[in-house]
Structure formats: C-alpha cells, structure tokens
C-alpha cells in the first residue's frame, strides 16, 4: 500500500512505518493480513485485509445437492466442523420439516461438545504461544490428539467430520466409544487445572492481557460480537440456553461470563478466561449426554433426493467462535437456492481496526488471538 508519509513534527522529521503482518506469519491464525501503520511501537491503525482463504463455499452451495453439501460445510471452519454441519442440517430440516431421532440428537450433542473442547484447546494453546509461552500449546495439542482419536472412532475423520447429516448423524456411537469418552473426561477435567496453574495465574501473562483492548457491551452489540467474545463483555447470552435447539434444554450447565476481576471487563484476559471455563462446562454437558443417551436409530429416514418445499430458514448454532448463522433459501429443487453462513470471526475482524488504535504491536497479536479469529471462518 503506498501511503504518503505523514511528518510528525517540524523539529524531527519522523515518519510512520507501514508494515504488513502476514499473510505469511506464524501467528495470524490462518492466512490473514494486517496493514499496520505504526509510530515506533504504537499502532496508528491496523487495517485487516482478508480474502486469502476465500473458497466461495456459498456459491458452491448452489451447485450441490442438499446431502452433498454437508462436507463443504466442514471446511467453513475446520476447527469447529461439527457445528457447521449441524447448522446446515438444522436449516435443511427446518425447511423440510424433518424430524431428527432422539438418539441422533444426543449423538450430535456429544460430537459437538467434543469438538468444542478441541477448538477451545487450540484457541487457548495458540493464545499462550502468541504471548510467548510455548509449553501450554503442546499440552493442549496432546489432549486434542486424544479427542481426534475419539472422533476418528466415531466418524472416521480427525478434522473434517461430515458426521452430522440431515435427519440425524452418519454413524452411531457405540457403547465402547462412550466408555472411552468417559475415560477421557476423567483424565481431562484434571488437566484444565494444569492450564490454570501454568498460564492463567502467571503474573507475566496477566500483565500482558489485562486492560488490553477492553470491549464494552454497547460496542459488542454495535459490532455484533458473538460467542465467548460477547460473554466476556458481561452479556450472559448463549444460543444453547437462550434460543435452545436440539436437546440442550434438558442438559444442565452454566454459562461462564466475564467479570473483569483482573482488570477491565471485556479485556483480553476475560476472553481467555471465559474459554477456559467453557472447557469445564463442556465436560459437564458431555457427561450428562453420555448418561442420558437413549436407544434407537441414529438417523431418520430422509429421501435420497431431498427436496424441501420453497422457503427460507435462519438457524443459529453456538459454535466455539460464536453463533454461526445459516440462512438457507430453498426453491423446491434438490439444490439449495442460496446458502449463507454468517460466522462470528467475520464480525470480530471488523472490530479490530477500531480497537487497535493506540495499542502496541505486541498487543495487536494478543488482541487477534483473544478474539479467536479463524481465517476459514472469515473468508469461507
């Protein structure tokens, strides 16, 4: 970007430095680019430049059949693939008025919460690494490996699952796998303490994060921040509790909300802390779901050429990065007319430009990591 240098004073001729963070950078959470104009270490503005990972998933939706589009939704956010699957399938079921079997719903909840654990582990781990603590990242990945193995047992894939189908789930969860998940949960709930001891109460870590880029509730509403970012600002809003779907009304769990105990409400530390607490809550949900799962078929009978009647549906799921909205329009044929995926990371990027005025380059990295933006979600 060619910009005229802005002289700062008459005595010393100083210029702003324009640097480009990314697109190849070890910590931009995917392929992102920021054109940052700094005065030494302090940022004047940071303009995000997205689109490096644009794969036109929305256009592809118009060319694939309803069933055939589900693998594409995996790639909309490959770290939280189950939720995208579920969102699309829920929209299709809403349009086609299809029932989902009860066992299918519980399988969906189990798979989704496992995926939430995996996604939050990566988020917390890479957050630590961006701040400089390299060890928690590897500990987080160690647990995520076990989750990937469990997912492989459930549906055959480690990252892009294609598990949740229209009408239920693709494969049933065997009792053996349920046993292994329980073993994993017993092991995992004690590990969250380790992350706390290593990272959350570390003085250097806290000093890096408190009072950095605090977001107020009004700003969060203006910029439509969702998910843990919104909850860190003090708003107790979770799609699973407030616009309930699937079998979440029957499960008992808390919604962790940021409370600004170490600094301002809504700063980077709150966003990190909400994610750590959500790890514990997901474990609770998983245990309940594993106990309550009924017997029965895992998927209901759905026509091979699925042709929902013409109409539109907007469905929200609580993905790890916020509420993922699926706006699906059908015109009665076996191809969707329009598929629109609204992701939380896209709007989180919009707020970075505003928040980055006046902070330092190191804080910008912390801010991007705390908002947990994810390039595939932004660009789709």
């Amino acid at each position, binding site marked *: 970007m060619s910009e005229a240098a802005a002289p700062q004073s008459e005595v010393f001729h100083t210029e702003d430095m324009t640097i480009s963070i990314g697109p190849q950078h070890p910590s931009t959470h995917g392929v992102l680019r920021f054109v940052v104009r700094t005065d030494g270490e302090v940022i004047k503005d940071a303009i995000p430049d997205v689109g490096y990972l644009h794969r036109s998933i929305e256009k592809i939706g118009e060319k694939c059949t309803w069933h055939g589009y589900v693998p594409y939704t995996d790639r909309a956010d490959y770290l939280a693939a189950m939720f995208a699957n579920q969102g699309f399938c829920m929209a299709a079921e809403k349009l086609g008025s299809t029932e989902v079997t009860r066992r299918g719903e519980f399988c969906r909840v189990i798979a989704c919460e496992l995926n939430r654990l995996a996604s939050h582990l990566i988020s917390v781990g890479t957050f630590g690494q961006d701040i*400089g603590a390299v060890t928690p990242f590897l500990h987080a990945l160690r647990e995520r490996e076990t989750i990937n193995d469990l997912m492989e047992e459930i549906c055959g894939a480690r990252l892009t699952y294609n598990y949740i189908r229209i009408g239920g789930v693709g494969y049933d969860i065997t009792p053996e796998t349920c046993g292994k998940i329980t073993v994993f949960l017993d092991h995992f709930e004690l590990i969250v303490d380790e992350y706390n001891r290593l990272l959350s109460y570390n003085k250097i870590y806290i000093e*890096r994060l408190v009072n950095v880029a605090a977001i107020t509730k009004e700003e969060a509403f203006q910029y439509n921040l969702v998910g843990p970012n919104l909850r860190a600002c003090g708003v107790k809003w979770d799609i699973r509790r407030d616009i309930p779907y699937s079998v979440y009304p029957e499960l008992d769990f808390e919604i962790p909300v940021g409370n600004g105990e170490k600094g301002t409400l809504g700063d980077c530390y709150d966003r990190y802390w909400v994610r750590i607490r959500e790890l514990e809550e997901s474990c609770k949900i998983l245990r309940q779901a594993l106990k309550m799962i009924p017997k029965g078929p895992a998927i209901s009978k759905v026509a091979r050429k699925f042709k929902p009647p013409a109409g539109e549906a907007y469905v929200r799921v609580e993905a790890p990065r916020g509420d993922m909205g699926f706006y699906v329009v059908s015109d009665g044929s076996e191809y969707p007319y329009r598929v629109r995926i609204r992701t939380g990371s896209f709007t989180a990027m919009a707020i970075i430009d505003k928040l980055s005025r006046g902070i330092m380059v190191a804080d910008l990295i912390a801010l991007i990591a705390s908002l947990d933006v994810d390039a595939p979600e932004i660009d789709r």
Partner: protein
Amino acid sequence: MQQFVDQLIQQGYFAGLPKEVVYAVAMVLAALVVLSVFVAPLAGVTSWLERRVWARMQSRVGPNRVGPQGILQWIADGIKNLLKEDIIPTAADKVLFPLAPYIVFVGFLCAFVVIPFGGSLIVADLNIGILYLLAVTSIVVVGILMAGWSSNNKWSLLGGMRSAAQIVSYEIPAGLAVLTIVFVAGTMSTQGIIQAQGWAPWDWFLFYSPFTFVAFFLYFTAALAEGNRTPFDIPEAESELVAGYVTEYSGMRFLFFFFAEWGNLYVIGAVATILFLGGWQAPPIPWVTDQPVLKGILQFVVFFIKAYLWVFVSMWVRATLPRVRVDQLMALCWKYMVPLSFVCVIGTAGWMVVWPHGNRWASIAMFIIGVIVLGVFGKRVGFQIRHSRPTLYLKPYI
C-alpha cells in the same frame, strides 16, 4: 597463560623470533583451541540439550535419532546449514549484512578470555577481568543493530531496535550487581574473585550478605535479558516479528546468531558462578587435591557443573514463562531493577564499613535462608510434578 608462554620462550623453543610474534601466535592458537575444543561443542551440545529439555517439558521427545540419544544432532544441523545457499537480499547492505553475525560472535567469544576453566587454566587473568567481560559482551548490540538495519526489512529493524534498547538498558542492573561483588572481593580479576571465596556454600559471595543475595537474582535476570532469552526474547519473538532481526538470514549466518545465543547461556552461567557461587573452589578431598592434574580436573568439573546448572535453569525458564511486552520490559528495568541494584550497592558498601571482613554468622544465616527458599521452590515443583497427568493412550493397538 602468559607465564606458560614465557617459560617456553626461556627454554629456547622459539629461538630468534621476537617476543611479540610468539605472543601473537600463541594468542591465535589459544583462541582456536578454546573455540574448537570448548566453545563449539559446548554451544552445540547446549542446543541439543535445550531441545531435549524443552521437549520433555512439553511432553514430547525431542531429537533422539542422530547418534546416541540424538547427541550428534547439532553436527547434523551445522553440516546442513553449511550446505545451504547463502542468500543475501538484493536490497540489503552489502558490507554490513554479512558482517553482522561475525560481530555478534566476536562479542560473545571474547568473553571466554577471562573465564577460568580451573585453578590455573585461564587464557588471560586480566586484572580488570569483570570489567573487560561487561565491556566486550556489549559488542553484540552493535552486531544486532547492524543485522536489523542492514536487512532492509521493517521487521528486522523493529527487532534490532528493540534488542538494542533492551541490552543497553539491562547492562545497568547487571553492572551494578557485579559492582556489589567487586566491592566485596576487592578485585576485578576473575581469578581474584574466586580466590576470595571458599569451597563451602556459606563462603560463597551469594550468601555473604542479604544484598549480595538480591544482587544475584538481579544479575541473573539482567543477564537473561542481555542474552535475549525468554521472558525477554522480544527481539526474536517468533510470534510477533517472524524472527526479528534474523529474519533475512539463512544458512550458516543464521546459525551463527544462535550459536552465539547458546554459547552466551554458558557465559551467563559462568559469570554467575565466578561472582556468586565460588567458581572452581572444590572441597579438599584428600587423595585428589594433592596431585595437580586431578585437582585441576576436579576444579574444572566443579566449575562446569555450577555454570551448566544455570544453563539448565535458563532453558527451564524459557519453556515456562510467556514473553514480557516491550514497555513492561523497560519499566521493569528502569523503575524496579535499577533502584534495587543501587540499594544493593549502597547496602553492600555499608555492610563492608560495619564488617570489613564479613560476618560469618550472617553468611550462615543467609545460607539457611537460601536453603529454605530452595526447599519451598522444590516443594512447589514437586507438587506440579505430582499433579501432572501422563499422556492418555486410548488406542491399545498403536
């Protein structure tokens, strides 16, 4: 070493050659010996050890293929880097860009002149030893700034500037902590400082007075900052600046910077040992200390273990702590460490006025306090180790 060369001249080995020429050749030879026999393998093994120690702390294994337990990994890395293409960016400064790694290397290598390996094994026992050390390790600032600026890359420039600011700032607490010890020892010569201590822990300068105890931690922190190690590794902060001032370097030049960093770890440990931990003073074991060769070996081993312990602690700290932000780093130095180090200096001066030859009871009391501190720390570490969970293997058929 000068006496050794003088002896050889007297015995007529270098008949005819003027003394200066003999000295010059001896110096070059000594440098080569120190470099190739001690420093290069040491830096290499330190790099291997760092990777293994890190890996175990991160519950993985680390390099264990090349040689027994992977101990020859550094040779493989060195050969690989020697064979790489030497890329110099077109817009980089033609003279300064290749020169920068060598200046950094010189700055760190010159420190080995005054670091003793044993009772009489030292390259040159300068009577301004510690001052020379502090001065010569500042040359790396010049090298780093050159690397940052001549790369013609804004990231490198940012990294170089940060590093220069950091190293120059942290010279002051480090130098003042050293000054504390110089007060107590009465000499700046490294051998002199070691000889002023004893082999028993309560004779070390670490426990001499509360002020030297604090000065030790000040010195260690400041030395970590000077060596660009986490938590102060902002100049090469991987996640912010790609690789900081070494971004544009590749191949052997890249490795030179890290060679200097790993070797510098040993220098930090060695200086800490010399000043605070009694250097090579070994307990007088009867059948060993009578013979000069065995005594020399024992002293070398004692010094090496004490110095290398701090290398291990540096790696431990690097694996554990996150990075400090630049303004917090500067605030830490100027607002907290510099006043504290002034307090240490003045306190030590006052201590020496009151007790010119030291107070044995105070030393023993400080030693007991030190043991208690170490005990509490060990208990916390034990707690963490006991409560850590091993990896969960769910698939029995792998």
